């Protein structure tokens, strides 16, 4: 009798851990994507894009507010339309703000991206109104895998994140533009001497980064719904992910993201769940104390 009960409990615990692991990995990929999205811009322009939280939010609003609710597009065309709209926005921001700003001091660069974020935020509030928007039935529900029941959103996040990573890897390794992007990340002067159009390259990088932002925005709609503060936590944890994985490294961002995602879910089981959001930032500060170059980071050659 008692043995049966114990095994039942063990199975139950095992299931919980597995479920936490799945949600941890899913959130980890979200943080990792955020890490990648800002690292791309950092490597290309040397700017830390503090407006990324608002870009993620903007993506979700354009999708939900403009395309699904106002024009009544179905989900897939709406996603495509959102990404196209965000790319136009990215090109505009790249040429008017990011590219002219890249030679300014760190202080000005950071503050102007923060202000850009605030302006976007206010514009969204004025245009879409302060209330949260819900998209009915978008990525909601549960999926049963074997005996495991997990939220559909998590499965979709993992799936989409893997596709984005694969595409990004292919793009960076195989295409001429991707190779040029890697060159620009390493040395802007040398790249421009080799005939790479650095400004165009930055523009493309920013467009890719913003599209990733908008996809993140779509993916987290079922978790946070479409509201102005929807991306504040993931954007901050994405920063932490980048540093923990190794600042400036794309694989590092994913590793750091997964690290945070899994750790905070496990910590949420041990500590009161209200402290779950603190874990990522404590990890960040510990990491800087113990191993400032991050999990995958190498020491930079100056």
């Amino acid at each position, binding site marked *: 009798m008692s043995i049966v009960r114990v095994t039942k409990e063990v199975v139950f615990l095992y299931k919980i851990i597995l479920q936490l692991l799945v949600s941890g990995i899913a959130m980890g990929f979200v943080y990792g994507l955020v890490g990648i999205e800002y690292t791309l811009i950092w490597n290309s322009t040397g700017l830390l894009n503090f407006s990324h939280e608002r870009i993620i939010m903007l993506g979700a609003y354009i999708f939900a507010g403009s395309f699904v609710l106002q024009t009544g597009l179905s989900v897939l065309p709406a996603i495509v339309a959102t990404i196209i709209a965000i790319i136009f926005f990215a090109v505009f921001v790249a040429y008017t703000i990011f590219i002219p700003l890249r030679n300014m001091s760190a202080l000005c660069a950071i*503050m102007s991206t923060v202000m850009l974020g605030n302006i976007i935020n206010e514009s969204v509030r004025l245009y879409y109104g302060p209330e949260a928007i819900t998209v009915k039935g978008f990525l909601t529900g549960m999926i049963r895998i074997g005996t495991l029941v997990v939220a559909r959103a998590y499965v979709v996040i993992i799936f989409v994140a893997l596709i984005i990573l694969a595409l990004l890897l292919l793009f960076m390794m195989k295409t001429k533009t991707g190779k040029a992007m890697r060159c620009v990340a390493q040395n802007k002067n040398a790249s421009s001497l080799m005939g790479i159009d650095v400004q165009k390259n930055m523009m493309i990088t920013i467009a890719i980064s913003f599209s990733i932002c908008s996809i993140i925005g779509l993916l987290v709609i079922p978790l946070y719904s479409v509201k102005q503060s929807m991306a504040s936590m993931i954007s901050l944890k994405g920063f932490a992910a980048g540093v923990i994985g190794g600042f400036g490294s794309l694989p590092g961002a994913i590793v750091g993201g997964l690290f945070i995602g899994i750790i905070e879910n496990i910590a949420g089981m041990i500590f009161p769940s209200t402290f779950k959001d603190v874990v990522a930032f404590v990890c960040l500060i510990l990491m800087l104390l113990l191993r400032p170059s991050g999990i995958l980071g190498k020491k930079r050659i100056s």
Partner: protein
Amino acid sequence: MFSRKHTRKIYAVLIIAALAFPLISNNTYYITMLCLAFIYMIVAFGLNFITGMTGQVNLGTAGIFCIGAYTSALLTTKTFISPWLALLVVILFGFVIGIALGYPSLRLKGVYLSLTTIAFGEIVRQLVNNMTDFTGGAHGVRAIPPYCLFGFELNTKLRLYYFLLAVTIMFGLIAYRIIYSKWGRVFTAIRDNIDAVDTCGISSSKVKIIAFTLAAVFAAIAGGLYAHYSGYINPSTFTLNLSVSFVVMVMVGGSGTVLGSVLGAVLVSILPEMLRFLGNYYQIVFYILVFICTILIPNGIVNVFLERQKTKALPEKN
């Protein structure tokens, strides 16, 4: 264009104006606004060392301000000690935070400080919000006693105004002395060329930690003052937005000068109020104005008029 001698006259005029203001106007609303501006000025004086002078972006000031406010509020409401004694604890906390947060992020070169300070601000806000039994959670702390000075309770607007003015002038003087000293020189040297600072036999990371700790102590003290000034605090005040506002004060006002911090604090606390006539659009107009200032006059308004900044810093590219 005016020089340092002229700025002394400007300080004198400003102080006299501030002393006379309540006598001329008895609009309590403006007096309240100015009280808040004085508290912000103290934060800006401190932040100026690390962000204005060494050029390291600190986006966690709200967290330190919050710790200062809660420490003083909780000590005085729970243990009933004098606010002055609590202030000593606040100073100690500011010092400890400065070193504990500055050490991991400032011994490295790069943008780590911006990231860790954001993280720190977020940790503080989350903890204050969630440790309901201890901090009162979202309800905040009520009935914080005012400071007492020579047997007078500083509980009227006017008394508070003059008290805060005096404290602000004191911290302004301290800031002024540091800016125009060997420390001010070394802080600026770090922004200009950090490698050269080390070759001069000065540990650049130590200097950055000193600047950051000064900023933390100033912010913590201002937080303590804020708690007793407003009598009620809750976590929704101490957001990332507040941290950003502090940086804006230093930047838009004029980095590296006391006058800039004064101007910045007054602008940031009063300008949004003056734009209220724009209705729903006042915030976006304010942000756009700040954005334009950031790009067009990155050294701030005051430095446009100061002689020594005429030659712009050459960007150091390696």
